[in-house]
């Protein structure tokens, strides 16, 4: 068989970490094997395009329309290839989605190439105006002008704190030193966040270009990318990109023969959350224990090896080439006045369209959750959304009109943070959620300062007792007092923001706390220790199923007689409830 399609078609398999995890490799292999039978089908790979819930997927353009062939399995490939041009037939067996529709509500700058180009091909990037910004800068923009430009754009750091990137560069530029450094912060430690990974895997040259421009602007000849070792694919693609860039003289002793020399070194981090904090990151790059130190001095004056250093987040740097190419005004025209531009978020939790999105600042949470996100993925309503991971806060559904920008979110007690956005539904216990984040913080605290080391531990212990029905109002007051003081008297932002999940859930869901404390009850049933399983004597038919399935043998009763659960030994596994054929077991 050797069919020929009416026009040549390019099939691009999404091979980001998420795609590969979903089985993209098998899809690609199958395609490679099968495609020989078709004359004008070409295959290639790209990286994550953000539609994680659709992985594995193939992107293709047919009749001018970009289509996503989604949730594929390798077995579907022959059929898919056969019927590529027949959208109707194709749709009968393969999930086909128009990409434009899927992107509604988004505005992609940082992700403009992600899921489109092959990240391992420098040419792909060049075709998309890659390194145009660098050329422009090296040819005829002075470092000072670059900084002026970035200032004018209003770009704020995307790593969490939202500090003005231009001002930061300016400080580093003005610091007097022979040697300066730039660092790209790719530690991305928030659980559930993968924006930076997607950018590095999908468009590595963009990050490199941003970093080189930054080096040029502040006067540094050396840059580091500090990336967590758990991101092997990102590291591999960055490595390849660096080699390719060097070969094309985009990196090296004399970049594009401009006289400016720059080299980039990749540092693999052990993946501690706190190593994303800039001073801890510097210590880690220096080979010391990754512990933050007190600021000031800020890295801009005393950073890596005590030299002036500028640290920026991956996404911040990925914005730079676009701003230079399109002009500061184009950037500041996007978003809101104080929070211009776009922001990438990773949507997760109980939400239909989980994945990466890039939106203009100033969009409402409602538009994100119900518009782009498609609403709840379960039959329960979305109850709240947690922004900014363990350092962030919860915003209840009643407040979904809140706009996503630095100031608005701050006023709710949450933060933009690095971009994690987790939707929770009515089955989520907010006390348990706060406990989860605090547990994360506790295990990630470096242990240097009193409030973070011991204070968060005590908070966690109190929360744990609450979820076990062993707490009281006095402890709630202690929890509040701890949260307040940890927030102001911790050394670094890890500790200072650690109480946020507790503070916001307490603010918006206090009744859930009170229920755990006073009634020893968890309405959502999440807190196992507070759940009591009982058998309704009237309903029980004495089938003995529950007793047989109880792993700790704590159900007594004989055949055809009502059964009884002895609470002392019950481990709340819920088996009895599941196996009862007449629904006689209920959860209190």
């Amino acid at each position, binding site marked *: 068989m050797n069919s020929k399609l009416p026009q040549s078609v390019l099939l691009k398999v999404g091979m980001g970490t998420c795609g590969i995890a979903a089985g993209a490799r098998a899809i690609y292999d199958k395609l490679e094997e099968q495609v020989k039978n078709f004359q004008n089908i070409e295959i290639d790979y790209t990286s994550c395009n953000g539609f994680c819930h659709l992985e594995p997927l193939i992107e293709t353009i047919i009749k001018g329309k970009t289509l996503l062939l989604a949730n594929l399995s390798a077995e579907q490939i022959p059929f898919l290839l056969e019927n590529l041009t027949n959208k109707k037939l194709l749709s009968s067996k393969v999930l086909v989605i128009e990409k434009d529709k899927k992107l509604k509500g988004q505005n992609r700058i940082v992700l403009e190439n992600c899921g489109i180009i092959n990240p391992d091909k420098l040419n792909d990037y060049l075709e998309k105006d890659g390194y145009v910004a660098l050329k422009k800068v090296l040819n005829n923009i002075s470092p000072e002008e670059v900084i002026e430009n970035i200032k004018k754009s209003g770009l704020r750091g995307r790593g969490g704190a939202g500090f003005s990137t231009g001002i930061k560069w300016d400080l580093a530029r003005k610091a007097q030193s022979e040697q300066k450094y730039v660092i790209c912060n790719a530690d991305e430690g928030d659980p559930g966040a993968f924006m930076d990974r997607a950018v590095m895997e999908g468009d590595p040259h963009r990050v490199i270009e941003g970093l080189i421009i930054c080096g040029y602007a502040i006067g540094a000849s050396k840059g580091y990318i500090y990336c967590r070792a758990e991101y092997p694919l990102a590291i591999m693609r960055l490595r390849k990109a660096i080699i390719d860039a060097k070969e094309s003289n985009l990196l090296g002793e004399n970049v594009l023969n401009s006289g400016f020399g720059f080299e980039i070194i990749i540092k693999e981090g052990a993946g*501690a959350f706190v190593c994303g904090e800039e001073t801890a990151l510097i210590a880690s790059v220096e080979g010391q*224990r990754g*512990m933050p*130190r*007190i600021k*000031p001095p800020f890295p801009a004056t005393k950073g890596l090896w005590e030299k002036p250093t500028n640290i920026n987040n991956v996404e911040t740097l990925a914005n730079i080439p676009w701003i230079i190419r399109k002009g500061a005004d184009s950037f500041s025209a996007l978003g809101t006045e104080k929070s211009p531009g776009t922001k990438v978020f990773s949507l997760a939790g109980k939400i239909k369209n989980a994945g990466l999105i890039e939106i203009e600042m100033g969009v409402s949470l409602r538009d994100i959750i119900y518009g782009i996100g498609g609403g709840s993925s379960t039959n329960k309503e979305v109850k709240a959304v947690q922004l900014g991971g363990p350092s962030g806060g919860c915003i209840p559904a009643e407040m979904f009109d809140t706009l996503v920008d630095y100031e608005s979110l701050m006023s709710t007690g949450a933060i933009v943070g690095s971009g994690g956005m987790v939707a929770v539904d009515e089955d989520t216990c907010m006390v348990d959620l706060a406990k989860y984040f605090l547990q994360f913080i*506790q*295990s*990630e*605290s*470096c*242990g*240097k*300062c*009193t*409030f973070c*080391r*011991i*204070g968060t*531990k*005590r908070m966690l*212990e109190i929360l744990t007792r609450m979820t076990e029905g062993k707490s009281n109002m006095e402890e709630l007051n*202690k929890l509040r*007092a*701890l949260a307040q*003081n940890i927030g*102001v*008297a*911790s*050394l670094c932002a890890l500790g200072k923001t650690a109480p946020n999940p507790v503070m916001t859930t307490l603010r918006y869901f206090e009744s859930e706390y009170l229920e755990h404390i006073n009634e020893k009850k968890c309405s959502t049933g999440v807190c196992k220790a507070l759940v009591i399983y009982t058998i309704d004597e009237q309903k029980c038919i004495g089938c003995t199923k529950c007793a047989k399935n109880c792993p700790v043998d704590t159900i007594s009763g004989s055949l055809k007689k009502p059964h009884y659960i002895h609470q002392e030994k019950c481990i709340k596994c819920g088996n009895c409830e599941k196996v009862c054929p007449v629904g006689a077991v209920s959860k209190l």
Partner: protein
Amino acid sequence: MSRVILNSKEYFFNEGQTILSVCAENDIYIPTLCHVKELAPYGSCFVCVVEIKNGRAGIVPSCSTACSDGMIVETDNERVKGIRKMALELLMSDHFGDCLAPCMVEGCPANINIQGFLALEGEGKYQEAAKLIRQKAPIPNILGRVCPAPCEKVCRRNRVDEPISIRIQKRYISDKEIEQGGPFLPAKASDTGKVVSIVGAGPAGMTASYFLALSGHRVKVYEAHPKHGGMTRYGIPYYRLPEDIIDKELDAIIAQLGVEILYNTKVGKDISFEELMESSDAVLLANGAQISSSMDIPGENSSLVVPAVKYLELVAKHTPREIGNETVVVGGGHTAMDAARTAVRMGVKTTILYRRSEEEMPGKDEVAEAIEEGVEFQYLSAPVKCEEVKNKLKVTCIKMELSQPDASGRRSPIPVKGSEYELQVDTMIMAIGQRVDSSFMPLDILGKRGIPEIDKSNMQTRNEKVFAAGDCVTGPDLVVTAVAAGRKAAFAIDNYLMKAVAFGEKKLFSSVTGELCELPEVMFATYEKKSRMIIPHISIEERKQGFNVIELPASDEQLKYEAERCLLCGCVEVNDCKLKEYSELYDVDTKMFQGESREYEKDSNDEVVLETDKCINCASCIRIAEANDNYKLLGLTGRGFSSRVKPPFNGEMKEVDCLACDEIVNNCPTAGIRKGNKKVEYS
């Protein structure tokens, strides 16, 4: 030069100077645990926080925040203090140590520094040991003979073999001091001109006299009896506490400190309470609880029923009352025991009738000794009726059984129906408790139970000029408790007289490792077993025959042996610990944030001990070592809550080089790292 406003006052500073350093230059107090002057700021303890009120306002660590021109800083406002306190409370919640030994903190009601006097005793420094005891209790010899020693119950040595014989060491120390010409009391402060009247010359009254006189006040004691000592003289028989010891110890207070005492003067009879009030600046009620409680049974008023206190008092006055050949003592407390053992010595056949079982008897050793001396016991029995029959007493008794323990764990006796039986005796001694004579006191200072009601923190009654302490507040209690109360009252009275407000004594501050039974076995594993000293005593025969003092003196070697059994439980750094100093200052509640905590962990080499269980991770040691180019001393291992300061690669202390040792040890804010040969200075 630029200016900064600290607590509303302007100060100059040099470019780059931190808030802490400007404060240090200007004597503005800021505590810090982790800052080492010569080194770069570290920012671990957060005890040095201050609040900036303008510009980038908020809480900052002063050790590492540079002043800027016009900055307004508050170093000591409520918010700052609250955060410091919480930082300390958090550190304390993860601290395994005893600043002070449990015998002193939990055991001794008067908080006598037991570890300290034992250490001094072991070195033969008896006068210094006595002086140390007197800081808390001015009657070491009396206590050394009569105290039931609650300290010995919590003594850590229980976990090795047997407790230190703490109680009698006080007597031995005092005996030695007396041998050397003592008691040597401290010099008193200059006269304040203030007059304090004290009702009662018992342990509470005499202790208060001692401390008040030392503070320079004019003390006048009113005593109804012809001699001082209260229940220690009239309630405790001479075979336990001989007269001459009471005289020696209390006369010293009167003579050396110029306390005035009026004997045979009963307030309410010989002098009115009003007169007392008029003639003094403050009054302390310390008249004890000396009226025998009645049993409320028929026939109780017979002349053959004798109150124990009366009986003991007459014996003490050498005018004993005749009680026949056979007597029964009703009660199970110390007084019952003293009365029974006195009766036996007078040649009377004596039986103790106690309504609970042997288990519930307060003094186990005393019971054993009483049995040796021939006292008989009938447990679970109580009298219900007495009848005089031909100069004899017919006592009808009933058997008891004990109920299930109630919420407080106490089992109460319940009469068994129909179990009545009869005893024929010559007399019955009633020792079921004592009451307070409050007949002379104004009603407005009395509480519901008709006895003085006080604020326990300062012993003050509702009348600010009147204080009360000892048995007259608590009912019959230990001598040592009365001593503690007397001292606390004196402290508050002194404040009342000199500062117009009667601040009470501050509660003793100490970090606590845990209850005796919960402590880990490793804490005791390395001690060699050495049994408790045997107190020399007279023979049983001699005991039965009269009132010779039972316990005999011991040799210097014996004292040294016993003193050296002490495990020295209190922390070696107690006088040099910043953590303790600040915790006291900020009124830290060590139990505020309880939870998972460090456990017993120590490691040492020839020079230093690393007490990991007391380390607060300030890393001063690591940083000082590194500043001295020693990278092989200590480092941090682990993360977060379980991070610890350890020799490199989780190694042991014996493998490390201890360069710059003195500097490191001196800068450690706790006992985290300390010299192995360090000893506590007890003063």
